């Protein structure tokens, strides 16, 4: 049987930049998995999000739940122009934030795109989130934003593709 979990691209930033983009994503996989360990240039924290195919329309929504060690909560947002994969300004200047975002059936052209995100802020919280991009277009690019701030050197981003039989 063929191996089916492949690294598509990976980057470790060597300088500060406001976005990271994976483009020209092949449609040959079934799911995508985006693994991130981003670091922000501001101690006050940044609100990371992603966009697919450069879409900045209000076509994103999300539902999440999280636990902080002392409390649990659930929140949702709709008709957003940002595809949030964590709730809040959780990317700061340390490397304590990590995220794994599973983008299911990203290349089909008949369904909206649902993604599942598991994020951890080592010193603060853990979270699970489901996001929706209301588009039946195949995803061919993903851009990750550090809110209105920037990612700094050492931030890592890796995109994997998963094939099905």
């Amino acid at each position, binding site marked *: 049987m063929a191996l089916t979990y492949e690294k598509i691209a990976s980057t470790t930033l060597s300088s500060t930049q406001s976005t990271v983009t994976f483009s020209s994503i092949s449609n040959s996989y079934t799911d995508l998995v985006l693994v991130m360990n981003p670091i922000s240039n501001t101690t006050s924290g940044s609100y990371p999000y992603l966009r697919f195919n450069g879409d900045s329309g209000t076509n994103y929504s999300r539902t999440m739940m999280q636990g902080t060690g002392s409390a649990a909560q659930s929140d949702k947002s709709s008709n957003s122009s940002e595809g949030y994969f964590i709730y809040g300004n959780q990317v700061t200047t340390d490397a304590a934030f990590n995220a794994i975002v599973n983008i299911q059936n990203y290349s089909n052209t008949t369904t909206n795109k*649902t993604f599942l995100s598991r994020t951890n802020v080592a010193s603060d919280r853990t979270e699970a989130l489901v*996001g929706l991009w209301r588009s039946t277009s195949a995803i061919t690019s993903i851009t990750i934003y550090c809110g209105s701030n920037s990612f700094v050197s050492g931030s890592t981003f890796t995109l994997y593709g998963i094939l099905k039989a």
Partner: protein
Amino acid sequence: MTITNKVSSKSVMAGNTPIADVVDAPTIGTATAGVESATVTYTAAATGGTATTFTATSNPGSLTGTGASPITVSGLTASTAYTFTVRGSNSTGTSPASAASNSVTPTAAPSFESIASVTVSSGGASSISFTSIPLTYTNLQIRGIGRTSDASTGGNLATYIRFNSDSGNNYAFHQLSGSGGGTVGAGGGQSQNLIYTIHAGPRGNDLANTFSAQIIDILDYKNTSKYKTVRVLGGHDMNNTTAQRMALNSGLWMSTSAITRIDIYLESTMAQYTQFALYGIKGS
């Protein structure tokens, strides 16, 4: 004039190239298991000729590796016990084999392999089954999207799974979920006849073209001495038009049988484009 080689007692004629002494058997050291491989240490014999090559040979399989100590023997089969012998050789010949090494069992190389997938066609489906699942992996993972074509507004219309066609009360599951309303809920139960993976999945009258997404991990599925555990990451977002949910589930099948069949159900007809794929994960 005849010169007698004092170790090997082989004779050579003066003026010809001398024949090297025959190599004596090395002393075996320690074998150490690797990923579908093993390393073998040895000590060259203090007597006899000087070996130019050392070869380690596996038993079973007669797979070989050469070089200085430690020698790596690759291409071994994971979960199979091996011993090794080492021989030295030079231009004269090959030594007897060393004593056999200790027994080692290589581990599997990590891999993630597609086993099967099913996509529901326009006619819908009542369930999806994966049968004759090979027992060659460590863990299984199911990845999928789901929706029911049922437009009813009652009931949960959940997704659930069963193993080996067992519909007895041999399951348990627990869930943390949030629908965006502030609180995080908990549910589940013991002595169930199924494992819920998603409650309240998308229905026919929910936001069009929108499916739940699920990732179901089934751990150590072929173990025949302990019960089987399941973890689920799943959810569906409906842009706040109808119920949405993010959930983390755990499940238990109280059986020591290896899992060879998985059935996935929705509590109503699966809609077209519902898709589930089964993967096998190797490696410890």
